């Protein structure tokens, strides 16, 4: 499939979205709710582009737009840039103290007049939904988007400590604005109002995961892990085994 983006031709695969094609070819389209390997969510609206097909032009969100042969795409028209600025403006009103969004606003030259800004607001979440998607992908489904309109939020059922949460922290890791609080101290991890005991690596003794995570992995894989290894130790172990096998070979 041939797609013309900002004047140049690119060849796309069937089923690919416009944003995937662009990213693959290192074409810059900003986004907040997109993560490689996840399906597009279409929430933040920042990835808007103009698509010209035949004699009709429309604005689409590229993260969910399946490419079609022969379309022409403009990623940076004045209209698109202005809309992106408005979106950033709206996010700035929502999260006036969030570092990431403030930086983005600066980059785009977006300023919010002080009479619209409420600097007391402590909100950091922009409701991109990546955390919920990550949790869903792990098969835990501990958090979800609840309510609608301006009261929409990410939460565990009834805001209580969720019995499904395994404390893996994947949600916090994918969050673009650092909105999810994950605190680790004294061998404990606190996330989503729930406290977990951290497990230490059997080799180096460093705390690295929660018991619930290891259980979850065992359950998913249908095995019982004997040795709890942190990431660097397990990488080292693989290296050692490889070296051993290699030496045996020669």
């Amino acid at each position, binding site marked *: 499939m041939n797609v013309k983006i900002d004047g140049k031709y690119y060849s796309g695969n069937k089923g690919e979205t416009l944003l995937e094609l662009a990213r693959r070819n290192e074409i810059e389209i900003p986004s907040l709710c997109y993560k490689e390997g996840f399906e597009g969510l279409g929430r933040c609206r920042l990835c808007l582009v103009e698509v010209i097909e035949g004699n009709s032009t429309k604005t689409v969100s590229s993260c969910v737009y399946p490419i079609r042969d022969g379309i022409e795409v403009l990623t940076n028209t004045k209209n698109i840039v202005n809309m992106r600025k408005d979106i950033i403006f709206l996010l700035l009103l929502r999260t006036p103290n969030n570092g990431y969004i403030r930086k983005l606003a600066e980059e785009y030259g977006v300023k919010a007049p002080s009479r*619209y800004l409420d600097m007391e607001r402590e909100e950091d979440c922009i409701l991109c939904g990546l955390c919920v998607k990550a949790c869903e992908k792990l098969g835990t489904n501990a958090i979800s988007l609840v309510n609608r*309109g301006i009261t929409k939020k990410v939460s565990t059922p009834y805001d209580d400590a969720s019995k499904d949460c395994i404390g893996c922290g994947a949600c916090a890791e994918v969050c673009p604005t650092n909105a999810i609080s994950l605190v680790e101290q004294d061998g404990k991890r606190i996330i989503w109002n729930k406290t977990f005991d951290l497990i230490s690596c059997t080799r180096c003794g460093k705390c690295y995961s929660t018991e619930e995570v290891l259980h979850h992995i065992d359950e998913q894989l249908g095995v019982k892990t004997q040795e709890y290894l942190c990431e660097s130790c397990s990488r080292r172990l693989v290296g050692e085994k490889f070296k051993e096998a290699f030496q045996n070979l020669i």
Partner: protein
Amino acid sequence: MNDIYDEKMEILVCCGTGCLANNSYRVYERFKEILGEESEVAVKPLIKATGCNGLCEKGPVVKILPKEIAYFKVLPDDVDDIVEKTVLKGEIVDRLLYFDVNERKRIVSHKDASFYKHQHKIALRNIGEIDPLCIGDYLKRDGYRALAKALFEMTPDQVIGEVERSGLRGRGGAGFPTGRKWNICSTYESFPKYVVCNGDEGDPGAFMDRSIMEGDPHTVIEGMIICGYAIGSNRGFLYIRDEYDLALKNMQAAIDNAREFGYLGSNILESSFEFDLEIVRGGGAFVCGESSALMASIEGNIGEPRAKYIRSVEKGLWDKPTVLNNVETWANIPPIIINGAEWFNKIGIEGNSGTKVFSLVGKVKNTGLVEVPMGTKLNELVYQIGGGIIRDRPFKAVQTGGPSGGCIPKEYMDISLDFESLDKIGSMMGSGGVIVMDDTTCMVEVARYYMEFLSEESCGKCTTCREGINTMLKILENITIGEGQLDDIDLLLQLGETIKEASLCALGKTAPNPVLTTIRYFRHEYLEHIKEKRCSAGVCKDLTTYYIDSELCTGCGLCSRRCPVAAIDGKLKEPHIIDRDICTKCGNCFTVCPRNAVKVGGANYEC
């Protein structure tokens, strides 16, 4: 015996939700009580519980056939009178007749009233004429004849062709050609396919879909079976708003009945075609009426819209080809199949064939459901059918299309009611809601009101819709309390355009309409609020003071008697004065003054 008995008499008591709320069931029971089993009346009138008659605020409505006598606002206590005079003696009970404000007289048959005379009923053809719980009534009025015709005299392609040629467009708001939708769906070779009825009706001001489901449920069922046959589907869902108790009940009863009579299930009418229906209760949010959110909700997921770059005719419910149509759209299908595309095409105007049901409410004399040919002029709707503005006050605007429709000013009163014309002036057909506003309406407040509704009803998925509507709401709130600034108007316009273009579903894409149209046609009201700190309609209380023009005041004292807080002082026959420290700005004096001597001043008015 009076000749009224020559033909079998029928008494129809409207038992639609509106009338039921006004005690119509007691009226019905009273008739049953007096005329019931042990009655000595030789020919027993048939009493039926019928669906909505349209003139809702004048209910309960009782119709007596075959003479077509119609009584309005009937109380249980009136029943004795009706039986004694009309049923037994064939006389008319004058005081219960409808008073036609246009013709300035009482009218015996409701069909002669201007409210009904200008209407053309297709979708509502059976409402108020049949007992929705009696399939026999429906059959008597050509019920299931269209289905038989489709199954035995037409191929699926011919059925689709007929619907396409009729020019019928979806009545749920977007106006997509129904035949084309069916056609595209029929081309996908992926099974099972689904047929879905959108009975969510989330617009608080509209009730045509409810009336059809309550008053003529079989027509919806018949339309859906015909579509199933045309596109090759064996299963359908009716998604009905959860609060619609009576619609749910009547619809379920009709489905059961239709199954019993062999119109649903396997081997329909011995044709080997199989189709069945099931009701799903709505998720209770306005956005659940949006097609993709509705399907997500049927699948058991949260009702959030998705991008529709792949349409639901290809991948709808459970990713299978699906046809979704609105209740009113379905109600048009049987008549089109029976009477043919050409018949339908002759009604209405080119590109907009057939009729549309509007729910006419607000400051008009006659309110209720109104079915008129597409292309009817707005002023015909408001003045001929609606009877004009209550108390003959000056007309200000009409809001059409539901919460995200636009406000139409006086200059466009001769606009044709069709999809394109309404779009062109910044409003829309939407749900068919028509709200009439007079000079006591503040257009800034109207815009604020709709933004408040939509900020709560946006699903919250996209930034532009969720944050954008909320930001517009805050700006409007500021303006209505006197804290607006001139550049607020520019920001509203700018955000409005972005929300329209950048949002994912039609809720966000239409939400700014109330703001954009009020700025376009009533900018002076915005300026008045911002610059003069004044709301000349007297609605925004922070910007309102009432005072009495001593030149005009005759000292009749009506205002001071109606003032709930005794803020008005004055001797009889001498000009009165309002004490602003006591006044709560309720506006009673303004509405009751027979000389229009009560004036509205701004926040800073000094008298």
